[in-house]
């Protein structure tokens, strides 16, 4: 059985079929990219997986467990983290606070313990801080630790968004257009980090992306979507040469 599986997922907004009977599977430890023109339904699939929208039909399986009915806040606890296309960071907080929120699914302290700030809470805080520091080191974000998000440039915010997702120690990470808005060097860095996530941290990566260079460089497999339907699935070169995919991007 595969690590992650989506079966006949559909999302209809009235008459608009954002996602139309999409099925695919992700193997453990692989990097799978989803490509397609704008409006193909890529982010909608992510929103279905992280349960922000309920699917009109279809089922989602993670580690052979049916997660289609799980509430959105349980998904992080299962080990699935995501980043957002339009960055959803907490503007008025420091980067450190943002990353510490990412650790939320690992917190074990109760409200009454926190009010009294018992030693168990203090120990928990130090542990969370240690893990966050490991992520900061992984992504070279030391310089921005105590800076407020509202003052940081877009490229840095994208990396912080990734860092926050990594802080929850996920098994599967959903990256929504990780390189959008980044320049060439930042995209290079991003491709190294994505590879490192797979090799060093053992995280399975599901990625929506437009930048073909990045897709070719990191992906093990690629899925092409258009109008909410799967056009092709396979290795990057196979998919890019597929006639349907070429027609979708360049016009028939």
């Amino acid at each position, binding site marked *: 059985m595969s690590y992650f599986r989506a079966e006949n997922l559909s999302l209809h907004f009235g008459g608009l079929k954002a996602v139309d009977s999409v099925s695919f599977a992700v193997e453990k430890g692989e990097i799978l990219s989803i490509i397609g023109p704008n409006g193909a339904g890529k982010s909608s699939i992510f929103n279905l997986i*992280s349960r*922000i929208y309920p699917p009109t039909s279809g089922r989602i399986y993670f580690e052979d467990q049916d997660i289609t009915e799980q*509430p*959105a*806040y*349980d*998904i*992080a*606890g299962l080990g699935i*983290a*995501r980043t*957002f296309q339009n960055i*959803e*960071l*907490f*503007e*008025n*907080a420091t980067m*450190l*606070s943002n990353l*510490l*929120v*990412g*650790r*939320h*699914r690992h*917190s074990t*302290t109760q*409200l009454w313990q*926190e*009010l*009294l*700030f018992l030693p168990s*809470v*203090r120990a*928990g*805080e*130090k542990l*969370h*801080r*240690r893990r966050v520091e490991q992520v900061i080191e992984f992504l070279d974000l030391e310089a921005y630790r105590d800076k407020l998000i*509202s003052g940081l440039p877009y490229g840095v915010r994208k990396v912080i968004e990734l860092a*926050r997702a990594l802080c*929850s120690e996920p098994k599967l990470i959903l990256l929504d257009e990780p390189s959008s808005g980044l320049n060439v060097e930042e995209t290079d860095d991003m491709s190294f980090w994505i590879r490192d996530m797979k090799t060093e941290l053992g995280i399975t990566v599901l990625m929506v992306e437009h930048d073909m260079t990045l897709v070719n460089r990191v992906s093990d497999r690629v899925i092409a979507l258009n109008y909410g339907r799967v056009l092709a699935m396979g290795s990057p070169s196979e998919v890019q040469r597929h006639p349907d995919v070429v027609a979708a991007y360049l016009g028939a």
Partner: protein
Amino acid sequence: MRFLFKTDYEDDIRLFPHSGYVVSYGILLALLVIAPFVLSSYLVSQLVFVCIYATVGVGLLILTGFTGQASLGHAAFLAIGAYTAAYLQQYNVPFPVYFLAGGLLTGVVGALVGFPALRLTGIYLVIATISFAFIVEEVLARWESVTHGNEGMRVKTLSLLGQAVPQNGPTFYYLCLAVLILTIVGTLNLLRSPTGRAFVAIRDSETAARSMGINVSLYKVKSFAISAAITGFAGVLFAHKLSFISPEMFTLQLSIEFIIVILIGGTFSLHGAVLGAIFLVMIDPFLTYLKDDMPGIIAGVAAAFGASKAAASNIESNVAAFASANGLKGAIYGVIIVLFVLFEPLGLYGRWLKIKLFFQLFPLYKRATFKRQKIYVKSERNR
């Protein structure tokens, strides 16, 4: 200018970043402790009100400032705490029991209010809290078997461990001060732990909070409950201070006064809640001062500038008439609120920070450091 060199994660977690803070807060505490012995009983009485209002302010801050759920109905929570105390006191329940009961019952009501409030945002939430407050006020007036309706209820003097604690005495002041300090410490603990961070996350982006694993509904209800419970505790003290409570003391006006406390003090800081409370409680004595002393002073100044005797006494009576005008308090409230929103959005605490920064950076201070960026862009309907 002191430079803080951090060597341990502990430095970021602890309450007092460096020993300077311990010294200044220690001195403040010492001053507060000797206050009843050096200040007049009137001022001590005002300090009691400051403590009570500041406690409510901190509670409101948790809900509105940190979780982003606006509430214009906190007078209702204060009322529930006060009436619980008055009611249980009739059955000779000891103080610690009805104190806890007041707070916890109000907390439960807060949680119940939190549930329907889950789906409401922005202006709808504000109106819902106003409606809730009205309904509570009516219930208090109608449920005569429990609350004696519009006649109100007498609150007997507090008795702790067999000793009577009159509301004008120093012991009551210490009690209120202790409650305030415990509330502040508890809130600070909350803020440096996962729950507090979850609250702030909910304020800034609910979607992101959900994807981080925060059960947004549960935490919103928790926030309501905690905020209400703190206000309920303050309500018990409020009941004792006034020794008589009736439904018309807990109006929308009072809820707005609580919002004024955190607005003037600074919406995101605990210091702000205390400063705001001081400011609000000082308005009444200020008005009295205006009425009694100002006319004489202004007339004196006019005379010093060479005005004739008749003109001076004319000025004096005009100023006195103005200061005694019925609506002056409301006008001052209005002007202060507008001025603060326009010119001092960070509140009194913000002004204090700016002053501190000025002295730290002297002579390199720039006013633009705190210039607030206007966020024209996002319509709040699409949060």
